[in-house]
């Protein structure tokens, strides 16, 4: 399993854009948020001379690791006895 000790700002921006899209509860803004994410993916892909699909798959992979790291950072308190 992968984990991240520090977050690259470029990767963090991608993960946050993907998270905003994923967290849209009503779904009505999902397409717009997906477009913003796609634009960011395109920009990063161009900057690093990679194809968009590779960056997209890398973000999707990293997102779950990021969420798992965040959710385990502050363990929930056990219920009171």
């Amino acid at each position, binding site marked *: *399993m*992968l*984990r*991240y*000790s*520090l*977050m*690259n*700002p*470029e*990767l963090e921006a991608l993960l946050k854009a993907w998270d905003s*899209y*994923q967290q*849209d*509860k*009503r*779904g*009505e*803004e*999902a*397409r717009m948020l*997906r477009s913003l994410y796609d634009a960011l993916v395109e920009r*990063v892909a161009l900057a*690093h001379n*990679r194809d968009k699909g*590779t*960056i997209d*798959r*890398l973000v*999707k*992979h*990293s*997102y*779950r690791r990021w*969420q*798992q790291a*965040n*959710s385990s950072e502050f363990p929930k308190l056990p219920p009171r006895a």
Partner: protein
Amino acid sequence: MMRDVERLLASNAYGSVKTMEIAIPTAVSEFDTSLLRAWFEVWIKLANDFRQWEREELIEKAPSAESLATHKRTAATLIRSAHLMQSLMEDPEHPSREFLPEVQGKLLQLQDTWDMIHNPMSDEEAGRLLAEIFPDEPRARGAA
């Protein structure tokens, strides 16, 4: 129930039958809207509950094989039913078009999450790409 209907029909004068003849077309004209609205409301509630479970069980933690199988099956049903609703609502004259953006958005999210969960990049490939593309900061390394 059936007897009530029969009794009502038997006792009806011509005027009452005429009332029924007027009422039926009105009900039928609203039938498709009512059906889609009810379907949409049930579907959106199920999709929201599913996505909440998905987040808690498959995104925020490493999923079990059972959770993965349940997700695959249920997500496929939600995606197929969303396609059906979408095709009905895409009719430009359909009265339930107001729900279309929400259905399209949820469908997109369901498909993307499906891809994220069931078609992931391998840890090895991700580690290599992270080191190449973002070499300075995110340290992707094998955990114990």
